[in-house]
């Protein structure tokens, strides 16, 4: 891009690409379909060691979200995308805190709580 190119954007909106092309969406669709099929296959199969299935599903889901972000929402690591990526990073941090924090606290609480039957007995 030349220095005085009036159309040369130095920052981009999310969902917008310099060379917004159909090909990007086709590649994204292909990857997303592949990851979805693998997810559904792994969930129903007995070929994989059982306890590893939730981990595999989580990894596949995160990969597919990444594919959506890059190919559909055009969030990239380029210097014109820093604002979008910083907002995304903050969002991901909050989501992680809410999810992990809730699960952690609630599992500890369930663990440390008296079984419900005994609790009912005491209240009688």
């Amino acid at each position, binding site marked *: 891009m030349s*220095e*005085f*190119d*009036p*159309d*040369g*954007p*130095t*920052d*981009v*909106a*999310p*969902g*917008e690409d310099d060379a*917004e*092309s*159909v090909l990007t*969406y086709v590649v*994204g*669709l292909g990857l*997303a*379909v592949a990851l*979805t099929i693998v*997810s*559904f296959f792994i*969930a*129903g199969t007995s070929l994989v060691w059982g306890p590893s*299935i*939730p981990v595999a*599903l*989580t990894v*596949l*889901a995160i990969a*597919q*979200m990444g594919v*959506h*972000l890059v190919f*559909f*929402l055009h969030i990239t690591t380029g*210097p*014109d995308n820093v*604002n*979008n990526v910083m*907002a*995304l990073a*903050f*969002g991901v941090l*909050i*989501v992680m805190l*809410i*999810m992990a*924090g*809730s*699960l952690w606290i*609630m599992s500890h609480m369930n663990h440390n709580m008296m079984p419900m039957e005994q609790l009912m007995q005491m209240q009688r």
Partner: protein
Amino acid sequence: MSGAAATDPHRLGRSSGHRHAASEHAAGGLHAKRIITGYGFWIFLLSDIIMFSGFFAAYAVLSGNTADGPSGKDLFDLRNVAIETACLLFSSFTCGIGGIGAHTRRGLWFYGAMTVTFLFGAAFLALEIHEFADLVARGAGPTRSAFLSAFFTLVGCHGLHVTAGLLWLLTMMAQVFAKGYRADILRRILCFSLFWHALDIIWVALFTVVYLMGAGQ
């Protein structure tokens, strides 16, 4: 410069360097507005995702509390979920194509792709409503257990978003038809496609956490 700095204090519309200042100022108006609109809507979407994470956390905590009622393994029909997923994924794809069509002012692309987007979205919604009605008819409504309350809240909230998105899509098609590809209309189309893609991202988390993990337990 001072006016631009007042409306865009964090330089969302421009790079941090000053080299481009002159050309930016001359050409910046349209670009800057589109970028700032997109950025603001991106922040809204992230806050929407954070709201969903609350529902996800509630579901994850309550998913085992079935009150001796049916669990996900008894209820979920993965074939139905696979069709729903395909509908939403393809509608996300055609929505992107429609966005390109609007950007390049090709009516056939825009109207054609957005019509397909609407049909896939409507098919998704019909399948989901059918699933909900079926669950309620089998006595597994939202009042049955904490698990089902959380399930209906989470999936229903996503369904409400899809409903709103479909209405918005129709509005955008009508606005393009009535007003043409004006800059403000194109900005709204950008926001709509961001919204629609974000719904698909939430659905990825949803079918993984709720349906695939629920059916596998």
